[in-house]
């Protein structure tokens, strides 16, 4: 299959991007400055991320759409206000996760942002569940640009006046020189920032404008170190079809009002696990010293018994040390539990720790 390119591909090239294939797309892993500088620039200034490979699924419908979606997602969608977003999951009957996503209530229905590697399958699953009653559009004509970091609000507001009035996890349509844009105050770096949905033919000019105002392009490499420092899950690593939201320590994302009656796909398993606890749970892990424990590193207790596995591990540039996340048996999930990581045949000490590794700077309550 031919590799897909986003509408910013030429711009990446002219900014000396190193490319990798990611979910069938040619995406920038880094630019000339490298992952650590890009990471730090995002934390101190403003980084631009091309996330156009992610799915933008618009579903249109009346009240009955909300009812149907509540049978799928563990959310209180009836009480979700217009332009407000929630983090959620598409699950199977065993509460295994097909995808994690952000769903936003828009005027005509919902906008769901899906992972690139999952979007086509998600569309198929949702189409089968919803039938032909609602109009669904996995929109390939729109790009998705994230701008993240403390200077992002000032930079973006100078181009799209009014975005500074958005609260975290809310969005709205804005008119600008770049036509109609849907902007949400959100992101996946642990920083204040925005995601902008823009038509493909306007995306390059828009990003060039952001660069002129002082923001810089950031690759997927730094996106990964940023999200890991922020303790955020990445599908295919922390989350997959064999993990449930309770095991992933994401029970906060399940609406409380939905737990008493269930009625969503996977609710039985979720309710059981909420009551009895899951046998394995996702935790933060800090190796002692500088050792990096990568994905699939085995985790042991002090009696040589394997108690879990690392799902993501790297060097955290802002933490200035190695960081990881992984799953451990629940009796080892308490903060400060001593564990051992097997790297290159030797066992190295590490500690279970609180997440995030890096404190978040989200903006709450502008209004």
């Amino acid at each position, binding site marked *: 299959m031919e590799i897909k390119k986003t509408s910013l591909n030429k711009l990446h090239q002219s900014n000396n991007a190193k490319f990798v294939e990611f979910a069938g797309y040619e995406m920038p*892993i*880094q630019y000339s400055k*490298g*992952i*650590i500088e890009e990471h730090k620039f995002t934390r101190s200034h403003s980084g631009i991320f091309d996330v156009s490979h992610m799915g933008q699924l618009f579903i249109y419908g009346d009240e009955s759409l909300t009812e149907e979606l509540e049978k799928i997602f563990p959310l209180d969608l009836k009480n979700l206000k217009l332009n407000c977003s929630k983090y959620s999951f598409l699950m199977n009957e065993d509460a295994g996760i097909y995808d994690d996503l952000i769903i936003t209530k828009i005027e005509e229905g919902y906008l769901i942002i899906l992972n690139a590697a999952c979007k086509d399958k998600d569309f198929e699953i949702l189409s089968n569940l919803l039938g032909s009653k609602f109009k669904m559009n996995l929109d390939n004509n729109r790009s998705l640009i994230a701008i993240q970091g403390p200077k992002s609000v000032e930079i973006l507001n100078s181009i799209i006046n009014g975005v500074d009035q958005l609260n975290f996890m809310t969005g709205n349509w804005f008119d600008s020189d770049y036509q109609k844009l849907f902007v949400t105050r959100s992101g996946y770096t642990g920083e204040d920032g925005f995601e902008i949905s823009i038509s493909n033919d306007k995306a390059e000019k828009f990003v060039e404008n952001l660069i002129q105002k002082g923001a810089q392009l950031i690759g997927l*490499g730094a996106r990964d*170190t940023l999200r890991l420092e922020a303790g955020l899950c990445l599908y295919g690593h922390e989350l997959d079809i064999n993990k449930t939201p309770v095991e992933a320590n994401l029970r906060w994302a399940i609406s409380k009002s939905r737990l008493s009656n269930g009625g969503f796909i996977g609710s039985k398993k979720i309710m059981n696990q909420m009551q009895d606890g899951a046998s394995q749970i996702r935790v933060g892990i800090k190796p002692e010293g*500088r*050792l*990096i424990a*990568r994905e699939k590193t085995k985790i042991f207790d002090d009696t040589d018994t394997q108690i879990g596995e690392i799902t993501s591990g*790297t*060097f955290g*540039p802002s933490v200035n040390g*190695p960081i990881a996340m992984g799953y451990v048996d629940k009796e080892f999930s308490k903060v400060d539990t001593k564990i051992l990581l097997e790297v*290159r045949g030797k066992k190295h000490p590490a500690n279970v720790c609180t997440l995030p590794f890096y404190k978040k700077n989200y903006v709450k309550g502008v209004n």
Partner: protein
Amino acid sequence: MSEVKFSKEHEWITLEGDVATIGITKHATEMLGDIVFAELPEKGSNVKKDGTAGVVESTKAASDVYTPVSGEVVDTNQAIVDDPSKINEDPEGSAWFFKLKMKDQSEMDSLMNKEEYDKFAKESAS
């Protein structure tokens, strides 16, 4: 000091008397990206030509470091273990990895000179 020689695994080596100093090339650091971890062989241990003699990790991945010649490890550069970013800053100078006491100096003969290595690096990168 001898002429700098290079291996296909992107190490450089110089010889002074019977002691070789070994590090990784600038080209290697450019391929690896930001280096955040380095593990060196133990002093007193013996390493064999083309065998592993350490590890470097970038933000992206771990890579083995090979030794282009055999010998006994007589010194290691603790400064790059304490601050691996030094490897990106000065890979072919102050950020050497380890020193070996060589037994068979003819092992140097099969290694590339600068011109040959530059050509090799350019070709292997494309």
